[in-house]
Every structure is written in C-alpha cells, then in structure tokens.
C-alpha cells in the first residue's frame, strides 16, 4: 500500500540545513493499522506530510498503491490525495464557516461527484458516525469528540484506501478518545489502511504494528504483538 525507500527530507533556512528525514524506509501493507511514535522533532509530522502528499521528499522513492508519487505535479498529487487518502488531525480542522454537511462536502466537490452522489455519501458517513441529526449544525456547536467524528466522516466520505491520523485523540478526554479509537478500529476492519501518529502508548499498542521514529529514521520495526513492553514516547 505504502512503500518508502530511502526517503530524505531537508529544510533549508538562510543559515542552516535541517534533515527532518534521513534514509527513511518503511512499508505499510494493505489493511494494516500502523501507529507511529517518537519524540518531538523526530520527523513524525514530516513523515505524515510526505505520506499524505502534502510535501515532496528531497530524495528517495515513495510508492503509493504501487505508483511512484515522488515526482508527480501538484494536480496529480492533489487528485491522489483526494481519491486515496483521508486525513484526521488533532485539531479536527473543520472549516468553521461550513456546517457539517458542507464540511464533508468539501473533498467530494474536488472529486467532481454530482450533487446526488455527494448527498448520498454525506448522509451515509454522517450516519456511520452517528451525527445525521446534526447535519446543519456548525462545528462550533459540537463537542470536541463530535467534531472529531465529523472530521473522520469527512475523511471517509471519499472512501479512501488509506487514512492518515495525526494525534486524532490529542484534544479529547479519555472517554471520547476511546470512542474515536473504536471508530478507527471499526473502519480498519472494513479494509481501510490506517497510519496513526500518537504520543499515547496505550493507543499505539492497540495498532497492529508500532514504529518508532527517532532522529528522522525508523528506530525499530517489530510486530506490535511481539513487543512485550510499552514503547515509550
């Protein structure tokens, strides 16, 4: 599903060059639920941005669903992002001006679906996350957990093969966090590949596999089930 080989990413400012990722190699299989942990500044976010086609690597190779996406132009990357990738963020990133319906509508618009198809999909995902009754509410009128469920619904509406989650429960209390986590596991069971960046060792442990990024490289690569003790953040 996702295959990175010797991916490098460096940022340049006037004075120094920082290497965010160095010879980063990773493979995620179809249907996997992978958690990513690591200390602050280790390159987790950079990895997520590159995986989500928001940034281009400085070097190396990135295959998404078997297609080399390292050198695609913005239009093709945007289309891939739209069709194959769903994002979930710690801050939900719902558009405050738009009600739930219109928020979920955003990726479907860029997909070019007709009005009927969009409506069908929006209603379906809203029902999946249990918020059908709130379709015309604005994000500010919902609790944090509800907002994150909307964000998940928005990520799912385009039926992506691949879901990228960045601290999806970071802003939620434990009860809500658990609900969101259960939702993600449910989605994964239906076949969507999930890569989740998190600080929370409990959450990380619930994934099929945990990888740790330290200093821009994958530190360890073992099956989560084989790992006896917790991986510290």
């Amino acid at each position, binding site marked *: 599903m996702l295959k990175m080989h010797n991916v490098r990413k460096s940022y340049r400012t006037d004075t120094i060059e920082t290497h965010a990722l160095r010879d980063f190699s990773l493979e995620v299989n179809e249907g996997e639920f992978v958690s990513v942990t690591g200390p602050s500044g280790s390159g987790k976010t950079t990895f997520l941005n590159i995986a989500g086609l928001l*940034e281009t690597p400085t070097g190396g190779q990135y295959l998404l669903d078997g297609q080399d996406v390292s050198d695609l132009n913005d239009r093709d990357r*945007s289309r891939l992002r*739209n069709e194959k990738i769903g994002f979930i963020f710690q801050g939900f990133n719902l558009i405050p001006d738009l009600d739930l319906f219109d928020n979920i509508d955003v990726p479907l618009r860029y997909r070019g679906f007709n009005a009927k198809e969009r409506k069908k999909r929006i209603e379906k995902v809203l029902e999946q996350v249990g918020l059908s009754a709130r379709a015309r509410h604005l994000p500010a009128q919902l609790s944090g957990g509800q907002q994150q469920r909307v964000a998940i619904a928005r990520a799912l509406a385009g039926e992506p093969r691949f879901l990228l989650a960045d601290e999806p429960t*970071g802003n939620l209390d434990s009860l809500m966090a658990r609900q969101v986590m259960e939702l993600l596991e449910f989605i994964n069971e239906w076949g969507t590949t999930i890569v989740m960046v998190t600080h929370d060792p409990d959450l990380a442990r619930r994934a099929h596999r945990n990888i740790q990024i330290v200093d821009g490289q994958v530190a360890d690569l073992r099956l989560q089930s084989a790992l006896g003790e917790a991986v510290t953040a």
Partner: protein
Amino acid sequence: MLGYYISLALRSLRRTPVLSALMVAAIAVGVGAAMTTLTLNYMMSRNALEHKDDVLYALQLDNWDPHEADDNPSAMPWQVTYKDAISLLRSDIPTHQVAMHRWGGPISLDPSQNSGGEMRPFTAEARVTSRDFFALFDIPFLYGGSWQGDADTSPVQQIVLSESTNNKLFNGENSVGRTVNFSGTPFTVVGVIEHWQPSPKVHDLNNGSFNKSAEIFLPFGLHRSFEIYPWGNTNGWKPEDINSYEDQLGSEYVWIQYWVQLDSDEQRERYREYLTGFIREQKAQGRFPRPLKFGLSKPSEWLQLNEVVDGDDRMLNWLSLAFLLVCLVNAVALLLAKFLRKAAEAGVRRALGASRKAVFSQHLVESGCIGLAGGLIGILLTLAGLALVRQLQMGYLDTVASMDWLMMLSAIGLAILSSLLAGLYPAWRISRTNPSIYLKTQ
C-alpha cells in the same frame, strides 16, 4: 466548480462584512471615478460621421497673413472666406459640397395662420447652408426635402425645420407648403428633418462642440437680402476698409465652414488638383500670400485637430486612472489580509484534495465577486458623477455626460478586471502556502 466557488465566496464575504464592504467600496469608488471620466472622454470622442469617414472632408484654405500662420494646431484658418466659398461651390468635382455657417433670428407662425393660438415669437438657432447639406451629412427627411436648386445663389425664401421646431410650430404635422415668419419675412416650409443631434457637433466645431444643433435651416443665397453676419467666429488678419456689406462679403474674413464629399481616389486626386489650381489662380490676383496650402480632413481627423477632447478632460482621465490604481492597491492589500486570515482553511482544503489551482481559482472567484459588486455600485457612482458634471457644466455637457449600455458593461468589466488583477497576487500567495503548517495544532 464555479458555482461552488461563488457560494464559498459569498459565504466568506458575509463572514467579514466590514472588510468586504471596504473592498467593494474601494473598487466601486475607483471604478466610479474612472468610468465618469472615461465615459466623458468616450462620448466626446464619438464621431457621428463615422459611416462616411472615408468620403467626407472638412476644407481649409490658407489665405492667412504672410507674416504669421493662423494660431491653431492646423496652422490654417478653420473657416474660409465668403468669396472663396462661392467660387468653390461652382466646382462639379465633389459628389456633394456644403458652404454654411451658424445664424439665428426670431421665428413665429405666419400671422395669417396664427389666428387661433397666441404664439410668442422665439429666437431660433439657424444654419445658413447650401442645399447639399442634408445629402452630405446623411440627414433623413421626415417630410419634404431640401430647397430648390438656385437657392444657393439667389434669395429663395424657403426653410427646412428640425423635428422639434416642427413640433413646436405645427404640432408635428406635415408642414410642407405652410408659411413661417422668420425675421419679419415669410418663408415657405419645404422640408422637415428627423431629429439630428450629433455630439460632438462634428460639422460645426467652432461654436461649442457639444451645443444643440440648429433648429432651422436657411438657403445660402440669402446673404445679401438679409445682410447676414454669422453667429459664430469671424476672423481676419488683413487691415481692410469695410464700408458696406458688399465689402464684408468680398473681404479676407473667414466665417464659412466648408465640407466636400469625395467618393473615390480619382475624385480626391482631381479635387486636390482643382484646389491647387484655384489657389494658384488667386495668387496670380495677389491673394493667398502664404505658401500654397490647403487642408482636407476626414471627420475623425477634424475632431482631433479641433481638440474636441480638451486638456482638462484628458488630464482628468489620467488622474482618475491613477485613482483607480490606488483603489486597486488598496484592494490588493485588503484581499491579501483577508486571504491570509483564511490560510488555515485553504490548508485543510489542500489536504482534502484541492490542487493549488483549485485554491487559486476559489480565491480569484472571491475577488471577482467583490469586483462585480463594486462594478454595480460603481455604475451608480458613475451616474452620480455624470449628473454632477452635467450640473457643474450648466447644461453644456448634457449631450455627452450620459452612459450608454456599452459604458455600463464596460464599468462592470473594468470592475471585475480590476478586482481579478487585485486578487491575482493574494490568490497566488494563498495557493502557494504550505498547507502542512496550518494542519498542526498550534
């Protein structure tokens, strides 16, 4: 997608009503100012004789002072002398030719026909002209036609009325054959022309380019019997003893406007030869002391030469374009502020699959919406501006200080174009920002 962008734009504009109103106001005021002066300049630059621009010519002859050319851009007198006009009228080369000048006098219904209503005589603006006038300037007749053939040289008391004069005197009835009283003399109506108000008044630019055109038309053969002095400029350079009206007619004073219609190159060439020969002949008799020179200007050239659009008008044009520029810079700054404020949203959209182009288009559409609103308000401001100009000019610019459909569309076009230009950089800037920095929780 356009519909989606428009609905997003409206939503976004509603969300920051003050900022949006500021931008719309900036565009509207800029467009209003620019369109007011552009409309004036456009209306002033119109050429009512466009359709005959290739065949009509205003004639100038240089009979001026040997020591000094006439003081105008053409360096020749604008008008010709009476005696030259009479001589030129004898040429059979031009298809049509007109010698004419402005005049006027009191007009009323003939006393015998004025029995019923009490109609005060009024002063009518007249054009004394040779009979080809209507054919040369393509003026259609409502009733009747021009006067008889010998009216150019003998005092024939026939008159052509404008539509409005005919309405005033005869309630718009066919008045051909009726009699009116002009300057105490009976004149027979031979024709009534349709409404004819070229603006600028290209056929007569030395009596106020935007004044109303004539109300009555009188034959050119009347000069001696009425001792007509023109209501217009009479210029001379030579000390002459004028002891009688005959001396006035035979003088070097210029006061006749002269136009010819020349349809083919061959005709034009022959007429040039004819004029050259005519001036040589006059030189032999001691006239035309300056180097041989004459002018044949197309209507479009004539308007330019006479500087119908004067310096003030053109200066205002530049000034208002500069004004629009300031308004644009203003709009760029405000748009940039507005868009950058929404950078996070653009970042989310990028993550959800919007390409840079999509983000760019979305914001450009938003600018366009501001432009459309600005354009509509700009039209109102332009109308107000033109009304102000009409009032300040005390009626002189009434015929040009008005907006036609073309100018209204141009106003909207200008507004949208301006706002798209203004939106170009901000939209580009927002489409280029790295989305990932907005996705992280700060």
